[in-house]
């Protein structure tokens, strides 16, 4: 554990006061704090700040001693170089090893776009589009012309709580989502509409055999599960007209 502390002292001019143009006081303060206390100074006509390093404190009271020592050094030097006696508006102390750990990590947020999100969720772009309109997906932080941008943490959190059923294929999952959003007791869809929803063609047997539309949950009928799971069943399968009705 480090014994050193980084202390920030920030000063603001009272309303109506400011440093005169060409005033060299801040340069003089920078000279001395850089040379003697590893200091960094910011400043304008209406205020300034100094961040310096201090150390050698009693371990039990190091935090308050660091704050007090930092404030005393900075304000003492400010007075010496002729800066006006303006009020302190911020006083912070952070242990140097803690600050080092913070400075190791970028302060730019971890963000992701559509391509990264589809990879993280292992879904198609179309499925992502559906998820976004489900009302359960995080809202992007910003929508650029190139697309939406999310915080990575928001996507990770969504993934943690996303109730994706294992083994279900994404294409029929999309049909389930679509039917779930419909409130009518009977929903008639053309095969072409279903293909648009699932993002690809139906298997040839769907157009040839009414049995493909059977309400069978047994076996690996993922397509039937997509409507049976939400309490619907197929009725009026019309292969010639290429339509099917899902009823509650």
């Amino acid at each position: 554990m480090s014994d050193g502390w980084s202390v920030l002292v920030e000063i603001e001019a009272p309303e109506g006061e400011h440093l005169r143009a060409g005033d060299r006081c801040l340069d003089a303060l920078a000279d001395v704090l850089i040379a003697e206390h590893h200091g960094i100074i910011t400043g304008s006509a209406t205020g300034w700040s100094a961040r310096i390093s201090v150390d050698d404190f009693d371990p039990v009271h190091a935090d308050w001693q660091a704050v007090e020592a930092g404030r005393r050094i900075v304000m003492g030097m400010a007075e010496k170089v002729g800066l006006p006696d303006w009020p302190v508006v911020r006083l912070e102390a952070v242990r140097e090893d803690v600050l080092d750990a913070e400075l190791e990590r970028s302060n730019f947020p971890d963000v992701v776009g559509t391509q990264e999100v589809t990879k993280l969720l292992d879904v198609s772009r179309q499925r992502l589009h559906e998820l976004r309109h489900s009302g359960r997906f995080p809202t992007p932080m910003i929508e650029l012309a190139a697309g939406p941008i999310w915080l990575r943490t928001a996507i990770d959190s969504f993934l943690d709580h996303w109730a994706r059923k294992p083994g279900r294929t994404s294409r029929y999952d999309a049909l389930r989502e679509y039917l779930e959003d419909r409130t009518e007791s009977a929903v008639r869809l053309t095969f072409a509409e279903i293909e648009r929803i699932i993002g690809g063609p139906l298997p040839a047997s769907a157009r040839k055999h009414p049995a493909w539309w059977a309400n069978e949950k047994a076996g690996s009928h993922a397509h039937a599960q997509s409507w049976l799971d939400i309490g619907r069943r197929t009725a009026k399968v019309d292969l010639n007209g290429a339509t099917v009705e899902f009823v509650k």
Partner: protein
Amino acid sequence: MDEPGGDSPGRELPQDFREVAIELVRNQGWRYDNGRRRGGHPLLLPADRTKRPIAVPTTPGDVRSLRNFKATVRQAGGIWPPPRKR
């Protein structure tokens, strides 16, 4: 300490400080004033004009002043370290 500048960070800055200054000026919209015209410290002027200019040391840096410098840059809205390419 608040005069605008259009200079490029050069050898007047210690290398570790120069590396940060170049990133800020080239990639983050900050400006740099080498201080020669004013006869003062070089200044880094944040992209966010409501933040105050930072006086950059010209003497060979040490770990502690570099730490304080990076913390000050971040407080003024600078991104450091820049995020790495995924």
